[in-house]
C-alpha cells in the first residue's frame, strides 16, 4: 500500500513539474514575456526593468529555476489591474466558485441519477430512448448558450430570476443549472451503464429469487452498489466544475475564479491568467491522486496492477 501511494505521489509530482514546464515554456517561447508581464502600453524603460527583474537575459534553465522558486513560495506575482497579490485574489474568489459548483453538482445529480436509473431499468424502452436524446442534447448544447436562453426566458420574459450578479440564493440558480446541464448528461450515462452492470450481477439475481419486491431490489441492492463509480466521477467533476465555469460565470457575472480568468484576459492582466491556469491544474492533479489512493484502499486488486 505504501509503495503504491508513493508511486502515485511520484506520478502526481511529475505531472505538476510538467505543468509548470508547459506554462513556462509557452510563455517564453511564443512571444516576448516582458510584454506579457508588463502593463499594456508600458515604456521601453519599464520593459527593460522587467527584463532585469525577471532575469529574462539569463539562460532558460536559470529562468525556470527562479520561476519555480517563486511558485513554491506561493508568489504568483502581482495583478496589474487589482494591484494585489494574485494568490490572495484567487483565494478571495474561490468560495463563490465552490458555491456555484456545489449547487451545479446538486442539479446534475438530481437530474442525472433518476433518469439514469429509469433508463437502465427500462432498458431499450421509451424512457431509455428519451434518456439517450437528453444525453445527446446535454453534450451538444454549449453551457453558455443554455445560460443565455435561461436569461431570455426567466429574466426577460417572465421576470422571475435576476439575470446576473450574486448575493441572494436566487442568483445562483441559473448559472448553476447552466453549468450542471452538461454534467447531468455525463452522470446520467454513467448511472445507466453502472446500473445495467449491477442489475446483471449474481446478488441481484439472488435478491430477485428470494422474492423481494422489484422496487426494493433496485433501491437497496442495485442502486447502492451502482452509486460508487458515479460518486467517484462526481467528486472529480466537482473540481472540474470550478475550473470550466469561465464562460458561464462570464455570462452571469458570477464573481468566481472563472470570472477572474476572464477579467485577466480582458484587462491583459497576465499574472492572473497564469495563476488561474496553474492553480486549476494543481487542483485537478491533486483530486486525481486522492481518488487513486482511495480506490486502492477500497479495492486491494488495484495496488498490485
Amino acid at each position: 500500500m505504501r509503495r503504491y501511494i508513493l508511486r502515485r505521489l511520484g506520478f502526481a509530482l511529475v505531472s505538476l513539474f510538467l505543468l509548470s514546464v508547459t506554462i513556462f515554456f509557452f510563455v517564453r517561447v511564443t512571444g516576448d514575456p516582458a510584454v506579457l508581464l508588463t502593463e499594456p502600453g508600458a515604456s521601453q524603460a519599464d520593459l527593460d526593468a522587467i527584463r532585469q527583474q525577471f532575469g529574462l537575459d539569463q539562460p532558460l534553465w536559470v529562468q525556470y529555476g527562479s520561476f519555480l522558486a517563486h511558485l513554491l513560495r506561493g508568489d504568483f506575482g502581482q495583478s496589474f489591474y487589482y494591484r494585489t497579490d494574485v494568490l490572495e485574489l484567487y483565494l478571495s474568489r474561490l468560495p463563490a466558485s465552490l458555491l456555484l459548483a456545489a449547487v451545479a453538482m446538486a442539479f446534475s445529480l438530481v437530474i442525472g441519477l433518476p433518469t439514469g436509473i429509469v433508463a437502465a431499468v427500462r432498458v431499450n424502452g421509451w424512457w431509455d430512448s428519451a434518456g439517450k436524446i437528453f444525453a445527446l442534447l446535454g453534450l451538444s448544447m454549449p453551457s453558455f448558450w443554455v445560460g443565455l436562453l435561461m436569461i431570455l426566458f426567466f429574466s426577460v420574459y417572465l421576470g422571475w430570476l435576476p439575470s446576473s450578479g450574486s448575493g441572494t440564493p436566487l442568483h445562483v440558480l441559473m448559472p448553476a443549472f447552466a453549468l450542471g446541464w452538461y454534467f447531468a448528461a455525463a452522470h446520467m450515462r454513467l448511472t445507466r451503464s453502472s446500473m445495467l452492470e449491477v442489475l446483471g450481477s449474481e446478488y441481484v439475481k439472488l435478491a430477485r429469487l428470494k422474492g423481494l419486491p422489484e422496487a426494493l431490489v433496485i433501491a437497496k441492492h442495485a442502486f447502492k452498489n451502482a452509486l460508487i463509480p458515479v460518486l467517484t466521477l462526481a467528486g472529480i467533476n466537482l473540481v472540474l466544475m470550478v475550473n470550466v465555469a469561465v464562460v458561464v460565470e462570464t455570462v452571469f457575472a458570477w464573481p468566481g475564479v472563472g470570472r477572474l480568468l476572464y477579467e485577466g484576459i480582458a484587462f491583459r492582466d497576465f499574472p492572473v491568467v497564469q495563476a488561474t491556469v496553474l492553480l486549476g491544474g494543481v487542483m485537478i492533479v491533486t483530486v486525481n491522486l486522492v481518488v487513486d489512493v482511495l480506490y486502492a484502499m477500497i479495492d486491494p486488486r488495484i495496488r498490485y496492477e
Partner: protein
Amino acid sequence: MTGSRAAGLTLAWRFAAFRSEGFPLLPTLILLTLALVAIFANAIAPYNPEVGVLGERFRPPAWQAGGSAEHVLGTDHLGRDVLSRLIFGARVSMVVGFTAVIVAGLLGTVLGILSGYLGGWVDQVIMRITDTWLALPALTFAIFLAAIVGPSEMNIVIILAAVYWTRYARVIRGEVLSLKERDFVRLAIVAGCAKRTIMRRHILPNVLNSAIVLATLMLGVVIVTEASLSFLGVGVPPPKPAWGLMLADGKKGLMAGYWWLTVLPGCCIVLMVLAANLLGDWLRVKLDPQLRQL
C-alpha cells in the same frame, strides 16, 4: 453503357445497405448542407456580413411586428444582416473545425504510433506529457494559450490542435500496443523491415479507422471550444462573423428581448455539433468495434 449502369446499381445497393444499418442520413445531410453553405457563402448571403447600416439596428425577423422581408432574420446592434452573418459563420466554423481536427489528428496519430511502437523513454515522455495536458481542462488551457498568442483564425487552429492532440495520442498508442504483438508485424520484423517502414506500412493503415472515428467525435468538441473562445473574445476576432462572436454581440440586446441574436446562432452551433456527434457515434460502431465502449 452496361458498365456505368452496373456501377450505378452497385452504388444504389450500397446506399440501401447503408440505410438498413441505420446510416444517419439526417446528420450527414445537415453537415453537407452546412458545407455547401460555407463554400457558396458569397453567392447565397444577401448582404455583406461585416458591414451594417446603423439606421437599421435591431430589426426583428420578417415575421415579427417591425420586421421586413429585406432582413429575413433581422439585424444586430450594428445593423448587420443576421442571415448573412449566420451563412458566413458556417464558413468560419467549418474551416476552423475541420482544420483543427485534422491537424490535431495528424499530430496525435504520429506521436501515438511513435509512443506505442518505440516504447522506452520516447513512450514515457510522450505519455507523461499527454497525462498532464489531459488533466488540464481543455477550455482553460485553450484560453491560456489564446491569451499569449492573441486572437486570429490561424492561431485558433494551432491552439485547438495543441490542446486536443493528446486525445488521439492516448487511444492510438493503446491500439499500437496490441497491433505490435500481431503476427504480421512480427513477420515484418523477421523479414528485416526497418522500424520506419513497419510503422508507416503496417501500423498506420491499421489505426486510421480509429483516427477517423475520433476526428468525427472531436469535431463537435472543437466547434464548441471555438465558439466559447470567440464568445470570451479570445477566439475569432471581430468583425468576422463567427457564431460564438455573434452570441457575445447578442448579449448586448438580450435584456431588451432581442431574442433572435441569441437563439439563432446557438441553434446553428447545436445543429452542427449534434450532426457531428450522431455521425461520429455511428462511425464508431461501424468502423471500430473496439471503440464501442469509449
